[in-house]
């Protein structure tokens, strides 16, 4: 197991070395882990890194035009990323990113 593959609780450290990425259970078919770390400096780079490391998730979070799918929500430190500017939302090493799916259908 490499460092980046493991979820390590670094909240007790003065500086977390990487961005913490948490995935909801909806993505377990495509990414076997619920928690990851990332060195990406933007939400776009983080998702591209995720797609590179876990090719099955390609086109599942984003469509072929690069937009987030309708029911995918990205939060940085608890705040939802504005869908109009999400590509350029910066990430810092201490940030926590949550990728969630809203409830849909019946």
């Amino acid at each position: 197991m490499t460092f980046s593959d493991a979820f390590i609780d670094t909240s007790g450290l003065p500086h977390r070395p990487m961005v913490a990425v948490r995935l909801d259970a909806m993505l377990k078919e495509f990414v076997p882990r619920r928690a990851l770390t990332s060195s990406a400096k933007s939400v776009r780079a983080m998702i591209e890194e995720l797609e590179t490391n876990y090719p099955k998730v390609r086109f599942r979070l984003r469509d072929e035009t690069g937009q987030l799918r309708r029911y995918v929500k990205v939060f940085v430190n608890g705040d939802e990323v504005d869908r109009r500017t999400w590509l350029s939302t910066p990430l810092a090493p201490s940030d926590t990113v949550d990728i969630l799916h809203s409830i849909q259908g019946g």
Partner: protein
Amino acid sequence: MAKGKVAVWVGTRKGAYSLTSDAKRRKWAVKGPFHAGNDVFHVAADPRDPKFVYALANNGWFGPRVFRSSNSGAKWNEVAPPMMSLLKDRKKNEMGGSEAGPIVNLWHLTPGPEDEPGSWFLGVDPGMLFRSDDRAASWAPLDGLNKHPTRPKWNPGAGGMCLHSILLDPTRPKRMYIGISAAGVFRSDDGGESWTPKNHGVEVSFQPDKNPEVGQCVHKIALDPANPNTVYRQDHDGIHVSHDAADTWKRVGKVLDTDFGFVVTAPKEMPGEAFFAPLEGMSRLGPGGQLQVYKWSEKTRKFTPTVKGRPFPGDLGTHRDAMDSDWLNPSGIYLGTTTGQLLVSPDGAKSWNEVPYRFPGIHSVTVAPAA
């Protein structure tokens, strides 16, 4: 494959099902749901090799996906979905995405020619056609249609701008037809390279120009098995027949109380006959609390109701891909409803039975030889 054994593949709002029966088509073994929770718009077994089955799953969370089984549905693997070809010069919108994408839903699969194993055609929303030559492992856009000069005049119907019908003329390998709501019928005589609108004679009730070249809301088309120049068409604006390979159309359904509807099928062993299930136009339900299946005869030029009495009382509707017919004699005809009933006639519509299993709302019904 077992001689005469029939497989019916059903795509529903909540997954896919298979039903198998012998040639009597009275008792059915049901399996599923496959891809539970997904909106499965279409499932198609390969008539050239029926153990290969393909499912088109559309999902609000994950987008459109193609699944393939090489063992009659026992196990499925996701294969490559088609992708809209993104032009480098296509404008980006304020959301950071392309103005022209993406593919919204996967709608319909049709196997390629008999002598081209592994070939498939796929219709999607927004009004695009793809071809695969490797059992759906990869897809190439057919830009003769996808970039057709009339495209700016196409509009989505209530179900989206869906390419829902793909037909190959069995007597002319390069001749194909497609149907798009609401663009109309197009024909290719060169294997899908170039396409010509074929809507002459089909009026459009919902536009100022009642006789445009394109913009018709065709719901489903079928070729006559004995004479593929005869084409049956269930349009938003009525039931039409063409006798010249879709060059011209004549509306024949006005004699019915309503000739709005979605489905049509022309059984292989019933040349000159086609089946329609008209619906009331506003509600999309069978008129008068009884879904009726009419047989159209080219010989008599008349419609005959085939559902006798009220065996299926209730307000039933159908989606456009929810009727199919088999190759046996007498013909089997299969009709799924939006509320999950599957009606089967094993005798060329002399009688109808309901399969005693209630499915989720049915999108599509496709019959194939059982592997």
